[in-house]
């Protein structure tokens, strides 16, 4: 499609046709007090050469640190073809197209993505993706409230071991809509949510129970027990899962006797670079019985009048262009580019490749935990099985230690102090398949040296 900007003459002709004096007339509905007036605070334009220099200087300031932080976003190897294919002109777009059926290739890409995500999570239907994992959970909670019409409480149980950013995001998006999140504590020994912690809610009207696997601490929850408990209370179950882990762990569609109702999570581990925190994409899958309450676009396969196979947007009566204010969400677009990259990543790796990635992550994290806990003053916070993250406890405050490691080019982990003060000097560490034995040895040595210098508590 040609991109031809309007000439001054075009603009004048259009304004004249609608009877407006100038462009500002088009904005006169906005009260003067809300308008910015001038753009004095914006610096003058730079040339392309100057901008390139400025941006590469700033990027250079980050250095190339050795990364041991996860906490919701993970550094994985991305095979070169993933972004070589994703950035081809034919598919280089962030959006589902407006004349969707004219773009059969784009729709097929989304259809393949949906098929892969439904298969990976063990659910029946997937949407075309959402903004990110955290907003995906907010959408899942709102969806659960719509889908569970018998429940009147709009109470949703969330484990304290859920990613705190997901909880804050859900409260920000869904909290204004009469939704109440109630916190379920974790066992200080295992870092997991025990069934006993849920007992106080037994027999009450609960709309849904959220369950993250692996949880924010990297520990593996008793997903079968909690799913079955929630069902016995008549609550829906929302799973938050790491897609890489699903190559090894049983998918949420098979948790407990009947599986969960909604599965969602962050798609970034599937071929999307860390990139300063975004853009990422969220995924959301469900059972057919709830599909009409699902947010987001859905592509279906069908046949045309001549019997030829084709792809089309389907179940659109849920969406804002038809249902207006009663739409199941006002996200009718998606993170199409990231979703495309994820589809190519999954297609390149296949189930066996994804399983090798997941196994390597687990093995590296085991090595990391062994190496770091050999350092005096460092111990593991929780027992029990985990995936590719672990919580360590130091014998002194975390921040000065992280600062000292950063000076040596090591990002040592996520400080849990702000969100989990009860854990003391706690650090969440992660090693994916991208960390080598040498990287781990380098971190262990730097940590031993740093703890020798930074004052103990």
């Amino acid at each position, binding site marked *: 499609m040609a991109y031809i900007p309007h000439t001054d003459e075009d603009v004048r002709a259009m304004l004249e046709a609608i009877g407006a004096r100038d462009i500002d007339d088009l904005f006169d509905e906005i009260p003067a007090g809300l308008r910015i007036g001038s753009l004095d605070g914006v610096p003058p334009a730079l040339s392309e050469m100057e901008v390139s220099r400025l941006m590469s200087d700033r990027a250079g300031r980050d250095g190339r640190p050795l990364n041991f932080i996860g906490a919701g976003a993970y550094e994985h190897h991305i095979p070169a073809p993933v972004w070589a294919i994703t950035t081809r002109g034919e598919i280089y777009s962030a959006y589902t197209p407006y004349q969707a059926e004219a773009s059969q290739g784009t729709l097929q890409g989304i259809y393949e993505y949906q098929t892969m995500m439904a298969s990976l999570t063990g659910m029946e239907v997937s949407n075309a993706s959402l903004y990110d994992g955290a907003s995906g959970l907010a959408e899942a909670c709102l969806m659960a409230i719509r889908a569970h*019409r*018998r429940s009147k409480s709009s109470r949703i149980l969330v484990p304290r071991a859920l990613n705190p950013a997901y909880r804050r995001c859900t409260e920000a998006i869904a909290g204004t809509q009469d939704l109440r999140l109630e916190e379920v504590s974790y066992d200080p020994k295992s870092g997991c949510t025990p069934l006993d912690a849920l007992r106080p809610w037994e027999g009450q009207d609960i709309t849904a129970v959220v369950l993250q696997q692996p949880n924010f601490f990297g520990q593996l929850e008793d997903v079968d027990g909690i799913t079955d408990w929630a069902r016995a209370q008549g609550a829906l179950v929302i799973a938050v899962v790491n897609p890489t882990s699903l190559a090894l762990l049983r998918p949420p569609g098979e948790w407990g006797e009947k599986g969960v109702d909604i599965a969602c999570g962050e798609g970034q581990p599937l071929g999307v670079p860390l990139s300063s925190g975004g853009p990422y994409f969220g995924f959301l899958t469900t059972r057919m019985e709830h599909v*009409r309450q699902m947010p987001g676009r859905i592509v279906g396969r069908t046949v045309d009048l001549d019997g030829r196979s084709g792809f089309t947007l389907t179940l659109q*009566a*849920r969406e804002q262009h*038809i*249902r207006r204010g*009663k739409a199941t969400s006002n996200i009718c677009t998606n993170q199409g580019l990231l979703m495309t990259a994820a589809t190519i990543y999954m297609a390149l790796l296949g189930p066996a490749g994804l399983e090798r990635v997941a196994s390597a992550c687990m093995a590296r994290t085991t090595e990391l935990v062994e190496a770091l806990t050999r350092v005096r003053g460092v111990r593991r916070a929780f027992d029990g099985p985990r995936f590719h993250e672990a919580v360590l406890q130091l014998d002194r405050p975390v921040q000065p230690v992280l600062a000292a490691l950063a000076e040596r080019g090591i990002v040592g982990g996520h400080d849990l102090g702000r969100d989990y003060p009860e854990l003391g000097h706690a650090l969440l560490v992660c090693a994916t398949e991208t960390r080598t034995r040498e990287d781990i040895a380098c971190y262990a040595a730097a940590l031993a040296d740093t703890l020798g210098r930074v004052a103990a508590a």
Partner: protein
Amino acid sequence: MSNVPGDLRFTKSHEWVRTLPDGSVEIGVTDHAQGALGDLVFVEVPEAGRQVRAGDAFAVVESVKAASDVYSPLGGEVLAGNDALAAQPELVNQDPYGQGWIARLKPATTAEVEALLDAAQYSEHLASEG
């Protein structure tokens, strides 16, 4: 011209009401409404026990191209939704005044039924909508 049975009451928003011998009422959408919507693919019926007021959106009918709310013509308590519509939404198209009923209601007062349109008034309303 669509079918407007003489023994029913109607609303301007194209719902019909049938008073049953026990004083409860059956509610559905009219032949005109199902024709305008086209082939239905999904009907969301209200659950038993729900209290509704006249004019509340209490059901949703979804066709291949649109979804519309169905408004309760009367206030009262929902006795039952037509669960058969979950598997066979097309019953609304095929038999809008019979098997395609949407909900049964125990009306709060009988006065509200009397205030609804009769068949002649509803036919007139359809003609005026053109």
